[in-house]
C-alpha cells in the first residue's frame, strides 16, 4: 500500500506542477506563454493519467487514454502555434502578411 500512497503523492505533485503551468496559461504575459502553459499542462496530463490507472489498479485501461492524449495534445499546441506563424504577430493589431517569406528555407 505504501507504493500506492507514493503514487498518490506523485499525483498531487503533478497536480501542483500543473498549477504552475496553469498560472502561465492564464497570466501570460505574451500570447506564446499561454501556449507554453497549456503545453506544460498537457504534457503532465499523460503521466497523471497513468498514475490514476495505478490508483485504480487498472493501468491497462488508462494507458490507452494516455497514449491517445500524448498524441493529440500535440495537435492543439500545433494549431495554436500555427496560428501565430500564419498571423505573424502576437497582438491583435498585427495584420496578416500577404507576402511569403521568400528568403526563408534551406
Amino acid at each position, binding site marked *: 500500500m505504501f507504493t500506492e500512497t507514493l503514487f498518490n503523492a506523485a499525483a498531487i505533485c503533478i497536480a501542483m506542477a500543473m498549477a504552475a503551468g496553469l498560472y502561465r496559461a492564464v497570466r501570460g504575459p505574451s500570447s506564446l506563454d499561454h501556449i507554453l502553459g497549456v503545453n506544460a499542462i498537457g504534457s503532465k496530463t499523460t503521466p497523471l493519467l497513468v498514475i490514476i490507472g*495505478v490508483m485504480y489498479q487498472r493501468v491497462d485501461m488508462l*494507458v490507452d487514454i494516455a497514449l491517445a492524449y500524448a498524441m493529440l495534445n500535440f495537435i492543439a499546441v500545433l494549431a495554436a502555434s500555427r496560428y501565430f506563424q500564419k498571423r505573424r504577430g502576437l497582438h491583435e493589431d498585427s495584420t496578416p502578411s500577404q507576402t511569403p517569406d521568400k528568403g526563408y528555407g534551406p
Partner: protein
Amino acid sequence: MIIFDIFIALLLAAGCVFLLGGALGILRMPDFYTRLHGASLLDTIALVCLLSASILYVLTRHPDVNGLITSLKIILIAVFVFITSPTATHAIADAGRRAGLKPWTRQNEEESP
C-alpha cells in the same frame, strides 16, 4: 519485491523533483524562450521517470502477458512524447521567433523592463 518498490519510490521522487523544478522554471524564468526549457526539458525527463515507475509497478504487480503489453504501451507513450514534445516546443519557439519576440538578454531587460 521490496527492491522494486524502492526503485519505484526513487523514480517517483526524482520525477516529482524534476516536475517541481520545471514548474519553478515556468514560474520564475524571465522570458518565454527560457521558460520553454523548463517546460519541455524537465517535463520530458520527469515524464520518463514517472512512466518508468509505472512500468515497474505494472510489471511487479502483473507479471503476465497483460502486464507486459501494458508496460509496452507505456513505453510507447514515452516514445511518442519524445517525438511530439520537441516538435511542439519547436513549433512554439518558431512561432515566437517569427512573431518577432526577441530573446531575453540583460540589455533587453534594462531597455524595457
